[in-house]
């Protein structure tokens, strides 16, 4: 009887530690949008270096890329390049383009947090 109680006491004492550990591990191993977004934006910047005739039209960024007219816009909560379905930023709530001087800026909102990055330079 004593041993059972002792075992239960050990389990009860270890439970909070285990719960906390699992919570921390779950948070740490969850999908990291921050790094993924930065990688996607680096790829987008590389494409926009090659692109020509960048032009903001409402919530879209139009360009000429390798002889084709392409458009970067938000469709179904994803920032995609059309024609096609090349997804750059998934699961976003809002997306806007603006030009400040010679720099094109992209701002997007995910989980209520708005971020903005420079994506292209057009002298």
């Amino acid at each position, binding site marked *: 009887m004593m041993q059972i109680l002792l075992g239960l006491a050990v389990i009860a004492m270890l439970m909070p530690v285990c719960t906390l*550990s699992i919570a921390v591990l779950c948070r*740490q191993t969850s999908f990291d949008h921050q*790094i993924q977004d930065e990688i996607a934006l680096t790829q987008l910047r590389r494409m926009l270096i090659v692109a020509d005739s960048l032009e903001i039209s409402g919530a879209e960024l139009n360009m000429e890329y*390798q002889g084709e007219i392409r458009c970067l816009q938000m469709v179904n909560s994803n920032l995609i390049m059309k024609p096609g379905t090349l997804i750059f930023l998934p699961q976003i709530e809002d997306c806007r383009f603006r030009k400040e001087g010679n720099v094109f800026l992209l701002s997007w909102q995910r989980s209520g947090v708005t971020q903005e990055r420079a994506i292209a330079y057009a002298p």
Partner: protein
Amino acid sequence: MLRSRRGFVSLFFLTVLMLCSDVAGILLVNICRRAEAAENICRANAYLVQESAVINAVQCSLKNDSLKEGSCETAGTVYTLELTGEGAQVQILQPFPETLILDLDLEEGIFSDYEAIRFDDVSSRIPTTR
């Protein structure tokens, strides 16, 4: 029959210590990987900035029909340009040495794509096993 329960406290704390060590180890590895990814992204962006400056300058010269071979400097980036049969080859000397192979149509004045050869590529830094 007497049973000794000495060591129960130390065993309990040993278990907690091992658990905490494991979690701390996993967290540390995770943080290291994220830091490495962030460093790689920073490096890639630094390369892109100089590539953008060089390509803008080349495109400008191409459109003005004044593309010439030789050493040039634009926006703090020093490079040498060499025209080839399929386009041009650019050797960036500063700030980050690399080679760009540009696909250009010199007659039409069209820049279509480029390939970058970076000397500090991650693949070239993988140690070889002996």
